[in-house]
């Protein structure tokens, strides 16, 4: 089981990392970020899908964060669908911050908090594009 999770993690990371050849114009690989929040929107679009989460800090302030994914075609071939993540799901996301200082990041891994599972764990490495 632990092995399966590790392999899935590697797969998600590779899908995300391979996503954007102009990554460095948008994100800083040296600024990791990990946040937990409630999904507010999933934009299943090209060349990269985006999803948004509301993150509440200790003082109760809510900030909306956008997360960039690979393309829907890549995600679909890796076992994701547009319904893999739903509005209202609580997720913990890891990635790298945008260079422009906004609430925006590139996604490396997503965990669904209700089950503790990495989302889209059904993906198989053979199907990566």
């Amino acid at each position, binding site marked *: 089981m632990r092995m399966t999770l590790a392999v899935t993690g590697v797969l998600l990371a590779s899908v995300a990392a391979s996503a954007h050849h*102009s990554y460095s114009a*948008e994100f800083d690989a040296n600024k990791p970020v990990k946040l937990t929040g409630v999904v507010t929107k999933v934009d299943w*679009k090209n060349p*990269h899908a985006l999803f948004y989460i509301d993150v509440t800090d200790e003082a109760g302030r809510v900030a909306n964060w956008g997360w960039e994914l690979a*393309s*829907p*075609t890549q995600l679909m071939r890796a076992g994701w669908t547009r319904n893999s993540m739903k509005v209202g799901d609580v997720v913990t996301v890891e990635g790298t911050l*945008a260079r422009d200082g906004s609430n925006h990041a590139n996604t490396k891994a997503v965990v669904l908090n209700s089950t503790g599972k990495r989302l889209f764990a059904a993906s198989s490495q053979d199907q990566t*594009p």
Partner: protein
Amino acid sequence: MKRTAFVIFVFFVVMPGVAGAQWIDYPSPGIPRLPDGKPNLAAPTPRTADGRVDLSGIWTVGNLEYFQDLAKGLKPGDVELTPWGATVLKMRLDRDHVDDPYGQCLPLGVPRIDMRSPFKIVQTPQLTALLHETFVGMIFRQVFTDGRPLPKAEDAEPTWLGYSVGKWDGDTFVVDTTGFRDNGWLSAQKAYPHSDALHVTERFRRTDFGHMALTITIDDPKAYKKPWTNTVPLRLQPDTELLEAFCDNQLALMKHWVAEPPPEEPPSPREVQR
């Protein structure tokens, strides 16, 4: 009675399965299968009715290594840049290849369009079509095998994908392409440039049912001191289909773009530098 049972079987057992099957994993008809139902990728190379090798199918490199670096695995010295080629390459690498037109939702050129996403080969006697799934749209190439010559350089409007004609060399399908736009990109991360003098030769050799060797020769006397060649292994992607992808999210992504505007690259010299 038997017939009724068959109809019931089809309606309640077979059809829901068909209706529920995804576009993305629908079993391809007419391909050899192993006893467990999986595609037999080691089966013999298929042939058309007229005895040619049949290249039909969806093909993919399956990784991004050649997309990032078309010279992957070659020896130092195999790729020798001209002064213009070296200048343009350095400009691109100094900016960490962020100016790749593909990142601006523009097309991939030839041959790197073969190396990014799955593509389908549709083969007919007079025309072979290459249907490419890319993030920036479904893109097709036409390879004519009706005997027409390549257009003369002075007559051809420069294009992203060039003009392609094909011929058979034994069991290998040889595609020659010219008529490209200047200042093109052959790779993403390695950002190798090409000029409007580029002549690409793609040799497609299907070695068995599930595998193809794609040998690419880059002959561009304005960008490289000599032609260079690499072979990219392709594998068949059975039981799937091409997926649509058009750039409908580009504005939302570009809001976070922080790179300075790109410097203007010099056009290739008018005369061949080799």
